[in-house]
């Protein structure tokens, strides 16, 4: 009996192994075919773009394009081919601006299969909806703005992420109002993407709209992080205080973002003075160290009172950080002596220049 069962199991296992060989071979064949197909679609698309942009467009121009694409099997029944064409379209769109971009947007509205990206947003699968939204804003299809708005607080992170980025692409600085109504935490990438898109599509800061949102109460922490990144990216000097204020927050990530943003901004003596007041208040010793590091590169003389206070502390991390900042200045030797004295458990030399 056992022998019989084992014998059947061996046959089954061997059969399954054969099936796997077949699947592997088939998979390799399909991949090769698709690589060839992609090359053909790419070539055709390059020709279409060049004809559309630089040749005279006849009445039958779009019909010819449609025929050519159908001939290359870029049809709804071959979704992989359609998706590849869309990816190409998005890549190409980013290279053009002005009237040429307008021509490209017109071409895209005529390419079959029609409304494919919009149709994706009607599906149930989150990744298809998110992909559809992404394609709509990447191809600058502004007529769908209102439609995208409804996904901004979707329960799926990818859907709401793409929707929020889309809103920023289509509505610009005005769209930042949605930050006050965020239902979910915004991921770091989403923050970065929103700031990047704002910078690409609307490079001139709209301070009126920014002020409106900055003055809003109850903005969730991740919304505040986006605002700080915007201030940093657009180098809006008059709003640096908003970032400094966040150092007081109990939220670790908020303080971390504030420190990150301040590190790359040009700070004036008043800014530095305000930042120094938060040194004692910030509970995390590594963030305290980051506060010290913010003083690097600014005239040492103006920070001496602050540094002197820090050098009295017992935290080696902070002592050495200040010492490091003072390396190469006239105070280097004094600090060296101080640290050596500390190391040997002696009192600090009394006549410090500091």
């Amino acid at each position, binding site marked *: 009996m*056992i*022998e019989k069962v*084992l*014998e059947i*199991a*061996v046959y089954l*296992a*061997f059969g*399954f*192994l054969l099936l*796997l*060989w077949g*699947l*592997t*071979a088939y*998979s*390799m064949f399909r*991949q*090769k075919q698709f690589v060839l197909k992609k090359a053909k679609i790419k070539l055709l698309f390059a020709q279409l773009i060049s004809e559309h942009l630089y040749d005279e467009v006849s009445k039958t121009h779009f019909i010819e394009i449609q025929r050519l694409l159908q001939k290359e099997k870029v049809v709804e029944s071959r979704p992989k081919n359609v998706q590849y064409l869309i990816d190409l379209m998005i890549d190409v769109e980013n290279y053009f601006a002005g009237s040429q971009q307008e021509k490209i947007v017109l071409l895209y509205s005529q390419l079959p299969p029609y409304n494919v990206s919009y149709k994706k947003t009607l599906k149930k699968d989150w*990744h298809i909806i*998110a*992909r559809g939204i*992404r394609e709509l804003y990447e191809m600058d299809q502004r007529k769908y703005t209102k439609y995208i708005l409804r996904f901004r607080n979707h329960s799926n*992170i*990818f859907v709401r*992420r*793409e929707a929020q980025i889309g809103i920023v692409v289509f509505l610009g600085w005005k769209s930042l109002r949605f930050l006050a109504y965020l239902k*979910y*935490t*915004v*991921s*770091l*990438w989403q*923050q*970065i*993407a929103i*700031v*990047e898109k704002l910078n690409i599509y609307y490079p001139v800061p709209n301070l009126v709209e920014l002020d409106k949102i900055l003055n809003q109460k109850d903005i969730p922490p991740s919304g505040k992080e986006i605002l700080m*990144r915007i201030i*940093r*990216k657009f180098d809006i000097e008059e709003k640096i205080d908003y970032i400094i204020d966040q150092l007081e927050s109990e939220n670790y990530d908020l303080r971390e973002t504030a420190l990150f943003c301040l590190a790359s901004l040009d700070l004036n003596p008043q800014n530095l003075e305000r930042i120094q007041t938060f040194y004692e208040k910030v509970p995390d010793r*590594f963030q305290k*160290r980051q506060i010290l590091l913010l003083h690097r590169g600014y005239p040492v003389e103006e920070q001496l009172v602050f540094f002197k206070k820090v050098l009295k502390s017992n935290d*080696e*991390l902070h002592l*050495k*950080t200040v*010492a*490091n900042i003072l*390396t190469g200045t006239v105070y280097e030797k004094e*600090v*060296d002596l101080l*640290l050596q004295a500390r190391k040997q458990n002696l009192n600090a030399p009394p006549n410090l220049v500091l």
Partner: protein
Amino acid sequence: MNYWIYYFISFFFFVYGVALLGFYIGFFFLAKRAIHKSQRREIFLKVEDISNATDVPSVTLVAPAYNEGRTIISNVKSLLSIQYPFFELIVVNDGSADDSLEKLIQKFDLEQKPHKFNVQPIPTAEVRGVYISRKPQYKQLTVIDKQNGGRADALNVGINFATTELILCTDADCIIEQEAVLKLVRPYLEEVDEEVIGCGAGIGIANDSVIKNGILKELKIPKKYLTRVQVVEYIRAFLLGRMAWSQINGLLLISGAFGLYPRNRLIEVGGLDTKTVGEDFELCVRLRKHMEEQNIPYKVVYIPETLCWTESPSTFDIFVKQRDRWARGLWETLFNNKNMFFNPRYKSMGLLLFPFWFIFEFGAPIVEFLGIICIVLFAVLGYINWDVAVLLFLLVYLLGCIFSTLAIYLYVKNYPHYHKGKQIIGLLSAAYLEPFLFHPVMLFAQLKGYYKKLFKIESGWGNMVRKGFGEEEKEG
């Protein structure tokens, strides 16, 4: 009575084998799901988006080097050529006895910079000098010369001197894909509810491949059987094992050759343990333990794609040394953290992951060895039904072949590295010979490692002689 003992022992091995088979089947489905999920997510965060962004976290690559003078220049050039908007490279010369440092100083026009006030939160062996390049094209490069203290100590020095948010621990002789860091930071950028405390990716074997200027130009199947079978072993381990664990946030190991960690967490746990030979496994376990104790939600993530290429041992002698060391590392970490076993405080790590690692990773060589002894003993006593035994052996062998083939199939289907029929046949044939040629040697090496630990025989890393990728001549 003897017959009952025979049945009891046979039943034990049967249950162990069936449980292992069940886990492997589960791994396959979990891995498949994880790969699918990873590919879907990639669409929404393309590497070009990351490379064009200005706010992405900065990364330091820390690469320890010990007596690698033959290939150090091309290795460093390779590491410098990676694509990432904000990265620095710290090469830590771990007291090399050869001319590694001199070569680096000369080639990259390095000058010493003062470091006496540098904060070193993790205690390490003495740092002798810190060097930066005078040439602007190498501004990302810092070379630190220190007294010899081992790989973990060298990495700790790099962590101390790094100023970035993320640290990529690697080896100077690894070939990292150009877009590797861009792909590796993805989980850090995307995660919202759980902090990513570690991220690894697939590691591949590049023996006999074509490498030019530190970049993998053409991937070839290794000529030697030993290295070829390790290709299959790596594919199986990374694609099935680690991806499956990643799917349920159960990863306990990120390979030392390629792992990205947040610097603040590394410092909080005191860096890598210099006393163990399995410092990568130990670090991951300690990081997880730390997060559990702090009650902070966390994640350890794995990327299925092969992003780092390394040279695997090409002789049985070096291979045995490597696996002996891995076995000792496993022993040390498991026994040093024994308080986690079935400890509900550590949730799934204490109740599932650690017991699994103990029973099926640590226990497998012991069970296998005992199995061989039992077969011999029962054969001598005439208890074995040879017809059943042969069929059972054939079935187990075929199941092993199926898992290897499944791993290769998944790899071929999803990644372009091995795309020629000849390559696939080479890999499959190596996999099918594995139980006869490769596995017994590995079993021997693992048992050797355990023996050393059991009888407290002192043994370090062993001399891991590498051939190199044969580039030093071209480097001039």
